[in-house]
């Protein structure tokens, strides 16, 4: 009951506050929501199933490039292109996942192979003229056209990504409370024991992969429409993959709210350290890294894990 009241209040704040924010803060809030969304998408596979993908940039990039290319070349609305990108990313994710899981790649080996898949796509994009090579693709500036996922101000983008983030949390909640969610957590804890208890580990991991890669691709399209520019380094580069998983790990991997909580903490930290260290290139990244090391050392289960432990200790 208290949780519902709290959730309702948070939602009301998220709906109303942006109307009053100056543009700079609205941009930060959009970043928070995008990273929270990407974290939630990663969380299904990484947090619940314990399969630490370092290559979610692959799905992000497929999403961004698919909708953008369909729009630039064929005039297809990015709203539609978004879904096509999602389907393509899911197909790629299932193929990559099947190959990795079928041959028993686990832990760091799975992480490395996913990283390799993403890098492979980045290199392909860099070397393909048809998709703009390393220069990338620009979505030309134009009139606001909501039907084409183009808005005249930042605010509508905020509401789109807010809706996507809420939907992602809803999906996570649904998964968590289903046979799939129980199976994924069992696999994360101990795959042999899960198999012995009747869990089809390969099938369940592929399902998690499908949901996770589809959602990540939608985030890619949002990014492309919001920034109106994509290139291989941004969309297929490792930093997208790392961003997604960091939100989840810092907030609490394998919890519903963890990724969004992580984004609310990490994005401002990143912005503040950048502002504070202005003019000393790279120092902000070091400060950011230091904070991450501290969080992971002292809160290995993230903020949600810490809160949960305190509650159990109190009860």
């Amino acid at each position, binding site marked *: 009951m208290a949780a519902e009241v709290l959730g309702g209040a948070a939602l009301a704040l998220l709906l109303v506050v942006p109307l009053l924010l100056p543009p700079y803060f609205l941009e930060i809030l959009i970043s928070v929501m995008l990273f929270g969304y990407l974290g939630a998408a990663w969380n299904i596979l990484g947090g619940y199933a314990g399969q630490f993908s370092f290559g979610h940039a692959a799905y992000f990039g497929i999403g961004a490039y698919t909708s953008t290319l369909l729009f630039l070349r064929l005039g297809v609305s990015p709203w539609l292109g978004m879904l096509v990108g999602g389907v393509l990313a899911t197909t790629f994710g299932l193929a990559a996942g099947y190959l990795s899981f079928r041959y028993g790649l686990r832990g760091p080996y799975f992480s490395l192979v996913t990283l390799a898949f993403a890098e492979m796509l980045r290199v392909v994009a860099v070397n393909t003229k048809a998709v703009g090579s390393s220069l990338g693709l620009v979505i030309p500036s134009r009139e606001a056209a909501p039907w084409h996922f183009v808005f005249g101000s930042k605010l509508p983008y905020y509401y789109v990504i807010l809706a996507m983030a809420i939907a992602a949390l809803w999906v996570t909640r649904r998964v968590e409370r289903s046979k799939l969610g129980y199976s994924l957590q069992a696999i994360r804890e101990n795959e042999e024991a899960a198999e012995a208890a*009747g869990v*089809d580990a390969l099938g369940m991991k592929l399902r998690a992969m499908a949901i996770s890669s589809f959602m990540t691709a939608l985030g890619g399209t949002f990014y492309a429409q919001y920034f109106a520019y994509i290139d291989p380094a941004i969309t297929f580069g490792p930093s997208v993959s790392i961003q997604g998983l960091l939100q989840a790990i810092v907030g609490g991997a394998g919890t519903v709210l963890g990724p969004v909580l992580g984004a609310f903490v990490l994005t401002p930290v990143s912005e503040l350290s950048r502002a504070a260290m202005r003019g000393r290139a790279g120092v902000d990244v070091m400060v950011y890294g230091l904070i991450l090391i501290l969080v992971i050392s002292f809160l290995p289960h993230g903020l949600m894990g810490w809160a949960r432990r305190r509650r159990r200790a109190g009860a």
Partner: protein
Amino acid sequence: MTLLEVDGVSKRFGGLTAVSSFSLELAAGEIVGLIGPNGAGKTTVFHLLSGFQPPSEGAIRFKGASIVGVKPHAICRRGLARTFQIVQPFVNLTVLDNVMVGAFNRTDDVTAARRRATEVLDVVGLGPRRDALARELTLPDRKRLEMARGLATQPELLLLDEVMSGLNPTEIEAIIALIRRIHAQGVTLLIIEHVMRAIMALSQRIVVLHHGETIAAGRPADVARDPRVVEAYLGTAS
């Protein structure tokens, strides 16, 4: 009715023969003990039966159908479940959630799985601990949890791998009573155990493995007197 037929099964790891032409028939409703000194190949037999390792040769049929090459989860679905010698709880999940994972073997519905898991927890005596994290359980309780998770899959045949090791005499008595309760529910049992008093009391038949080979089989009292069994356990007098 024959539930399980194992016919001339061997398992070799490189040059080492862990199990050599092992054969066994289990009728529905039996309790059979599998004993032998350390390294005799007992746990390997369990790995072969539950699909964790493929046999090098031989046939395994469960309810008349071959299960060689079938994946562990699919074997579990057919009604053959196992426990692990070294207990393998999902330590970060609650006791109830651990058992629910097993219950999902027979249902896709969360409410049904929770109901089934709750019943099983009452059977094994872990009802009061259902909301504890598995990592918080004592060893005897972890053994019970291991059995509960297997039982929740609703097996026709349950393989128990040393569920009494590391327990004190009182705890062993409780586990013996629990195994009898499980058997009374119509579950056939194949039990690996080093606690002789328990295995003698529970088993209708005992099979003795030594160096991967069956050296004796029969009623508990006969097996205990068999000179080859005594020799395998104690060594020769010379």
